[in-house]
């Protein structure tokens, strides 16, 4: 187990190095000159020249990269050109928001997705199975932005139960925070629930048809115990992988959903940064999310071993 973790941690280093080189080179492919964008309507040649110098945009890419890498290794992610604020401050201020939203969304997705998947597998071929499947498909295929706007109209404008958008920290006001995040979390969770449901269902079907389940039933175990203890435990392995990957995607920022509900998370940060060619911010956010993604993969691997003892070699 420890060797597995240590090995994966070591793998993190080359992965992140490749990621950082990729971010740097891909940005150069982005058309548009950051200094020009930053100057906007105040396009004076002298001013633009000064911006280029100040942010080392006049230097060759490899040199810019070395400066950046040196900063990162000493814990300095650089400074936002647009906001004159350190990138690490921006990332740190967004991280709790994104983390909260992602966790809530994942919780909703797991609750709905896994339950629905198990139910539809156990009652396979019945009307219930059919209904759950149709709802699952609707969940997968509903566009987030549409569902978001519809929910805002229903719950904020018509019923007036929830605020239309915005964000409150749970440390300031717990209920207020729940009120502002429940709709976006539901929108995000809904799409993932559909996917999780499909995977849980097929994994469960396979497990329920397997020999060990037949044996368990033959031993005279009660059906709930067979389903939960024997079938589900095995069927959960692919669901964990999928869940971890989906969680990683949530952490890298739910761009559209954050935009609609005006949640100040990673998604809004990175989109604004890309449109303003605020390179330091883009690099910082991508680096952080890439690291989280790799770490989550590692956690998923540990998770397998925990639910499925056969993998503990």
């Amino acid at each position, binding site marked *: 187990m420890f060797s597995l973790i240590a090995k994966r941690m070591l793998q993190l280093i080359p992965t992140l190095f490749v990621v950082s080189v990729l971010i740097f080179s891909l940005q150069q492919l982005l058309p548009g000159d950051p200094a*020009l964008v930053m100057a906007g309507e105040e396009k004076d040649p002298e001013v633009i020249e000064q911006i280029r110098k100040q942010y080392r945009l006049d230097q060759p890419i490899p040199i810019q990269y070395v400066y950046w890498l040196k900063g990162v290794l000493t814990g300095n992610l650089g400074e936002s050109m647009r*906001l004159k604020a350190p990138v690490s401050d921006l990332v740190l201020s967004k991280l709790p928001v994104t983390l909260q939203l992602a966790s809530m969304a994942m919780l909703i997705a797991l609750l709905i997705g896994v339950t629905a998947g198990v139910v539809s597998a156990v009652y396979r071929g019945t009307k219930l199975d059919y209904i759950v499947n149709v709802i699952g498909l609707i969940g997968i295929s509903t566009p987030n932005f549409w569902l978001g706007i519809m929910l805002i109209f229903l719950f904020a404008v018509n019923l007036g139960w929830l605020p239309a958008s*915005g964000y409150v920290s749970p440390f300031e006001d717990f209920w207020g925070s729940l009120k502002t995040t429940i709709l976006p979390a539901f929108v995000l969770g809904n799409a993932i629930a559909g996917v999780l449901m499909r995977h849980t269902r097929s994994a469960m079907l396979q497990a329920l048809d397997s020999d060990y389940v037949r044996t368990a039933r033959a031993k005279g175990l009660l059906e709930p115990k067979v389903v939960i203890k024997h079938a589900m435990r095995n069927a959960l392995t692919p669901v964990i992988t999928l869940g971890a990957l989906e969680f990683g995607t949530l952490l890298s920022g739910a761009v559209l959903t954050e935009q609609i509900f*005006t949640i100040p998370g990673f998604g809004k940060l990175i989109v604004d940064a890309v449109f303003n060619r605020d390179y330091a911010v883009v690099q910082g956010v991508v680096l952080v999310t890439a690291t989280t993604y790799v770490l989550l993969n590692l956690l998923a691997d540990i998770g397998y071993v925990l639910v499925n003892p056969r993998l503990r070699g």
Partner: protein
Amino acid sequence: MRYKLMAGLFAAALMSGAALAQSPSTLRIGLAEDPDVLDPTLGRTYVGRIVFSSICDKLFDIDDKLNIIPQLALSHTTSADGKEVTIKLRPGVKFHDGEAMDAEAVKFSLERHMNFQGSFRKPELSAVEKVEIIDPLTVKLVLKNPFSPLIAQLTDRAGMMVSPKAAKEGGDKFGLKPVCAGPYKFVERVQQDRIVVEKFADYWDKANVFIDRIVYLPITDSTVRLANLKSGQLDLIERALATDIKDIKATKNIKLATALELGYQGLTMNIAKSDAGKAGLGLDPRVREALDLAIDRKALNDVVFNGEFVPGNQWVNPENPWYMKNFPVKGRDVAKAKKLMADAGVKTPLTIDFMVPNNPETRQVAEVIQSMAAEAGFDMKIRITEFATSLQQAEQGNYQAYLIAWSGRTDPDGNIYSFAACKQPLNYSGFCEADVDALLNETRAISGMDKRKPVYEKVAAKLLDGRGGILYLYHRKVLIAHTDRLEGYTQRPDGLVRVVGLKFK
């Protein structure tokens, strides 16, 4: 026991109700974007100016008719040769940190705008040679050459005064905690979430400030912004959509405040910026005149904006005092346009690379222009381009027609000089004629509308109807929607949300 508990809860509810009634009044404003850095020297966005209008007062302001009115300054006089401008300051004005807003501070602020690294105000104040202190409440700006638009520049960020003490301490991080002399002082900012300001007790005009706090909330999606206003989460929103005007007017409890924008929406033609330009609309002046005649500006406004905006043909809108009435908006004339194309000897359809920034409204405008121009023999190939990319391509001359707007300035010089004078930074068309340059420079050297406007008319004769690099199409309205509980809101053409004098019913 249970009754006691109930009674206790009830009392608690009543008390919290009473506390609410006394709680400070807050104005919640929905912004269309997250502002950039809140430093008047380094700021460059429109949305940033909206926030500045509550925290940073300026030397001068404008009224509904674009007249220059005093704010932190009381008056200005220009010497006979136009090279010295003397400004008298308002006495007893304090910055948010208690420092005095006097001649010393004005000199500091203006010099910071002029010299600070990365200052975007530098070009706006480039005519200023130096700032001299005459007495504690008088400064003299010595100019390199006469420059009549100067006072108008001081009605915007270049005229915003900052506390010298705070600015020296803050350096280039001053914008993270700006200290100015406006009606509200900066409290906190959470990036992309909110900016909070509160009433400044020592404001020079404090008798007219009624609301305790203002919270600015950036909400990008216009539908969501409006939904927040309707549901009572916001009190005022900026940049409502023209297509939502009907809905807003039909909603009770919501009012709409409008003014015609200072800027224009236009089509920039590449005449000589690059070879691509010379091979397209730069082929012959008659081709550009034909394109101008092919566009029905009234129909464009009716189709895309439900007729809510105003068709235009000059760098200022038809209601602006600088509008030249002897150059009215012409109607469409396809027959004449076709004849001009034939006279110019170009083979039709003439293919034009039409660069259009990616935005639903501009896309529709482009499609309408495309179909109108087609009848006169143009094949406008629309190329939807992300905004930042389009700026760079325009700079490189990698386009033939470009649908790009200008936000506008108080003085007409800001709407024309940099676009039409040779080799100026915003001259994307490559238009360059010595006599136009001479006329534009003349308008800068003389002052007074009565003297400058006749010179602008000479410029108009050389530039309008497709003779210059830009076809002016229409002018948008500044659309501000607010709850009817808010009293005293009026809109001025610069689009800023002024907060002095506002109160809740």
